[in-house]
């Protein structure tokens, strides 16, 4: 009778990543498929750390042009301005739209930055086999997954404005090259957080009794 205090993987149980059905997996046999949905059973996401790092590094690189280049060009008879993400937020703040300015600041400045930093921290801690605050790190991962997609906000704003405001010399809005880079950052970090394996946070905590299940 298994004691329900350790990882399922240590006791030869594996939950299907598609349908969540728990089945017993024989290490020796080749047919490791879920009896219900035929998905390949695996104890952990394959090559999670290296895949997550490579996507994350790509995102870090694109984060630079995303913030330095022009996000949106606004032209009219009276004035012409080029805005980066940050200067767009500052402009909104100065024109008195504090609420919207705060929302855009959170979605396009804070969330991407916190997401990059959080995923890096999680990866480093997992690679070092850290045993500190596993519950806290798991909730950090869950919040990264939850809020990450909201960074797409700016992409939609630029799309809508650039499509709508096309009035020749009177008023024109154009999307800048930063929009593409920024969109890529959001998509890459979303893929990175999907590749991350939160169960790796908990694995080092099980190492105290390593030979328990070898007899099975």
């Amino acid at each position: 009778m298994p004691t329900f205090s350790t990882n399922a993987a240590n006791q030869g149980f594996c939950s299907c990543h598609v349908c969540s059905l728990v089945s017993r997996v024989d290490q020796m046999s080749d047919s490791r498929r879920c009896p219900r949905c035929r998905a390949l059973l695996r104890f952990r996401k394959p090559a999670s750390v290296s895949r997550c790092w490579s996507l994350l590094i790509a995102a870090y690189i694109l984060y630079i042009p995303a913030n330095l280049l022009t996000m949106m060009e606004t032209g009219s008879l009276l004035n012409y301005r080029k805005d980066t993400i940050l200067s767009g937020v500052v402009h909104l703040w100065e024109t008195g739209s504090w609420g919207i300015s705060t929302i855009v600041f959170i979605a396009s400045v804070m969330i991407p930055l916190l997401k990059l930093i959080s995923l890096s921290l999680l990866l480093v801690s997992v690679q070092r086999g850290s045993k500190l605050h596993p519950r806290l790190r798991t909730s950090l991962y869950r919040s990264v997954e939850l809020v990450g997609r909201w960074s797409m906000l700016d992409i939609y704003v630029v799309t809508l404005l650039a499509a709508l405001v096309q009035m020749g010399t009177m008023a024109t809005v154009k999307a800048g090259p930063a929009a593409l880079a920024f969109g890529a950052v959001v998509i890459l970090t979303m893929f990175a957080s999907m590749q991350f394996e939160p169960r790796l946070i908990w694995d080092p905590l099980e190492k105290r009794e390593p030979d328990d299940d070898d007899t099975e």
Partner: protein
Amino acid sequence: MNRDTAQLIVCHDCDLLQREIALKKGCSASCSRCGALLYRNATDSINRTLAWTAAAFIVFIIANIFPIFAIELQGDRSVLNLIEAVSSIWTQKMQLMSLVVFVTTILIPTVEMLSMIYLLSSLKMLRIPFGHIMIMKMIRVVSPWGMIEILMLGMLVSLVKLTSSFKVILGLALWSFGLLTFLLAAAAASFSARHIWNLIDKIGGMKS
């Protein structure tokens, strides 16, 4: 199905093996070690998800046909709906961005809603639909990429930006997208993959 593993449940976040317990209606079980949500006893999950999704699909069609908003500047007028926005960005040489917007706000929501309606209505008639495993897999993979609610917030931000220099006229699609956000949230709240898999098992058991 293997009887002795039927009541076992494994936490997707920390891999803790636990035994399933019966829940009261509307309650949820979370992992005793890491606090992740394990499963919910969503009230009447299949019926409600189907109803909310069907309603959402109808509103989604309206939201795509009618204009979101229009601007007016010295008698000059410019009207926009979602598909026009996507195609206009495409012609402005931002094809990749146009593709991203199209996929996340039109293609994926359509595919997700239609496959959900097909799957759930078949199950309600006690039939296992063709390709049900593929549909369940697809819904799982695709759902984080449907971004209607973020588009909705984007519309509001654009609206504020536009009102500073133009006269803005609100369109029916803006209200439709607002309603759609609520309908999709309700559908997501009543959706439970566990209920669907259990029902598939039950129907499969009756047939054999």
